[in-house]
């Protein structure tokens, strides 16, 4: 893609978030996605094979709607190292280990895509945090950043958000135990003031809510951004509503934003709106697909979530079928006033465990 394309893209990312209506957004997204399709088709053999072999689309095909864009399965980055830029342009490789015992995803970033990612994230975050850097409490341990050679998804999330804060304080020690002293130290200065809190959903619940003994914590002016999914909290029967209510009762915390995204797609950042639904920003979108035949589901009907983003240039991640199941609740008509599609996550497709005769003894090794 040409330099001017990048300028055009930056300009689009810079437009105020959640401001563009359906018709306009479709035109703009498809314009960038057509460019990305051609770019990846030309520069990435795997993408070209999938486009032509599965979707019957060629290099010069252009699309009229985002639903027509070919998609890759999100797990492809576990099995294949995919890049659409020359090796010498590779700036960093993001990895995510997901659940223990699984192969990590590898996501290749060049300078340009990495800068766009930072820009996009800042547009989303400043929308709810504002432009001022706030004192920042991180519900994690600094150890998670130690292995700088390969960024874990959690580390990358923390680093990505750290630039929106100051006076950063990690409240878990190197053994991932709550450090009450550090928490009190931070609160001595900032209790009741405007501050930013970031952490994984489960860790916020486990450490900040359940474990901390401090009764004086006042977070009525704080903004909490949390992500990582609900699986562990579902086991404790804690849903989003309970989570929000309990944090409000205990700390006076009202500004709570869940955040859905994955290391495999830069720009695919979905922040919770005031209605409690995840909301698509200007530069990315979701499509809910019927798991039976991948046809597009109408609003209100659940299916597999496809995520689309106009940022990934260094690797073919602009259109991915996730393993998450969700429902699109509507578009442009959110009570929060934000434009764009909004949705909720129902869960994740279970890993298929099929039976068979070649499965007796060797696999049960302890």
């Amino acid at each position: 893609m040409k330099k001017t394309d990048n300028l055009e893209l930056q300009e689009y990312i810079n437009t105020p978030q959640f401001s563009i209506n359906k018709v306009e957004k479709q035109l703009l997204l498809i314009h960038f996605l057509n460019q990305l399709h051609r770019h990846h088709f030309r520069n990435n053999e795997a993408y070209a094979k999938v486009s032509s072999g599965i979707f019957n689309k060629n290099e010069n095909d252009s699309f009229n709607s985002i639903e027509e864009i070919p998609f890759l399965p999100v797990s492809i980055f576990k099995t294949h190292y995919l890049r659409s830029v020359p090796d010498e342009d590779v700036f960093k490789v993001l990895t995510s280990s997901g659940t223990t015992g699984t192969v990590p995803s590898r996501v290749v970033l060049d300078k340009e895509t990495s800068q766009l990612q930072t820009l996009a994230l800042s547009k989303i975050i400043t929308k709810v945090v504002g432009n001022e850097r706030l004192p920042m409490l991180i519900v994690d341990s600094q150890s998670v950043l130690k292995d700088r050679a390969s960024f874990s998804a959690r580390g990358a999330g923390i680093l990505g958000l750290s630039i929106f804060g100051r006076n950063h304080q990690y409240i878990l020690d190197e053994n991932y135990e709550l450090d009450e002293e550090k928490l009190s130290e931070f609160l001595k200065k900032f209790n009741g003031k405007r501050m930013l809190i970031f952490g994984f959903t489960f860790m916020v619940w486990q450490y900040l809510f359940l474990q901390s003994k401090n009764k004086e914590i006042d977070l009525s002016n704080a903004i909490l951004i949390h992500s990582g999914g609900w699986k562990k909290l579902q086991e404790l029967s804690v849903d989003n509503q309970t989570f929000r209510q309990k944090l409000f009762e205990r700390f006076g915390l009202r500004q709570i934003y869940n955040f859905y995204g994955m290391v495999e797609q830069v720009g695919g950042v979905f922040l919770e709106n005031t209605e409690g639904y995840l909301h698509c920003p200007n530069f990315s979108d979701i499509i809910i697909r019927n798991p039976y035949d991948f046809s597009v589901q109408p609003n209100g009907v659940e299916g597999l979530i496809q995520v689309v983003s106009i940022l990934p240039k260094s690797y073919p991640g602009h259109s991915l079928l996730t393993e998450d199941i969700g429902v699109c609740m509507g578009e442009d008509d959110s009570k929060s006033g934000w434009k764009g599609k909004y949705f909720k996550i129902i869960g994740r497709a279970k890993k298929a465990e099929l039976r068979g005769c070649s499965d007796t003894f060797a696999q049960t090794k302890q």
Partner: protein
Amino acid sequence: MEELRVKLITPEKKETEISLLPALNEKEFPLEVFDKQTIAFSDALSKTILQNKDFNHIPALAALAFWLRKSNIQRIIKENKSLFSIPDTKILPLGKVLHICPSNVDTIFVYSLLISLLAGNKNILRVSSKTQPAFLDFLFETINSLCLQNEFKIFFNYINIVSYPHNTEISAFISKKVDSRIIWGGDNTALLFKSIITNPRCRDIVFADRISFSVIKCSAFLNAPSEIKKETARKFYNDSYTFDQKGCSSPQQVFFVGTKEEYEEIVNDFFKLVDGFAKDQYDYDTASLAVMKFNELTNDVIENSTNKVISQTAFTYSVESRDIPMKHGCGGGYFYSVNIKSVYSIQEYINPKIQTLSYFGLNTEDIENLSEISKGGGIDRIVPIGRALDFDYVWDGYNLVSALTKILHIM
């Protein structure tokens, strides 16, 4: 030495020291080959299964009960009459047999056990300690209660079903004491047990990883009335999906024999019919299947195994592939298809891993040609579509009855 303990399931439930297993200790072999008591035991087991309303509707159990019936056992005896026809010989039980049972094709252990019992052998069966379907417990209970009956008391020493977590010491202890081991469960299990030292005369009967396929003659399918087409698709569905397409005799690939035009005319219809049955009857989470198969398809496309998709629904994926050797897909209804001009072309795909060929529309001459290309290598079974899973004493190239008996020469 620390005690080697196992969980005994049959003939009674208790923890026991491995050296105390009755099958390893009793020196007497009162049962003959094809003993009347064994036939009666098999028939009684069959009746109990058929009478149980909770379980008799499960296809795998119904098939098992049918196989265990007295009349079917008598067929097996009749078919093996020639074993007894060698002059100056007697056919006798081989001795003690260890069965390493597959954890997931849940009824195989009963077939394995009964064939060995018919041969007059004492048996130790190792079953997986993983969670199992409810009907397995029912089978164990049934065998246990039969063994308590006066007329079947003799089987108390003949059937020891045990369960233990992976433990080479226990496996080695039993392996040294038995005269034969029947090892189900694929390459890894086979190699693991082959690395364990046995008595030098121990006969290993090994069921390694196999791969199976179907052959459909396009002209025969084209000319068949629509109910036959549907019936063929239903049988193909049963062969494929009953064990999640992971059974060693479930087809992975389908060869369509005919011209390109004939092939193109039927291939979509065939998989559409299969998908109809799968959609109605295959009880599996749609999103999980969709994710698993789309991942497999993407990998196949990137690795050049295919560049053409014939069917793509969560329940039935079919892609064209000319890969040699043919691939084992992800299972759950993921088929490779290929158009060939004549059955001879199958020769290129044959290797020792090939087990079952299930067919529709082949004539005697085709089958003669296929048996010709089975010499020295793969293809151990040629059966009509719908019978791929029919287990019998002839399996994987063995006659299990003769493999589990010995010949006494008397001059």
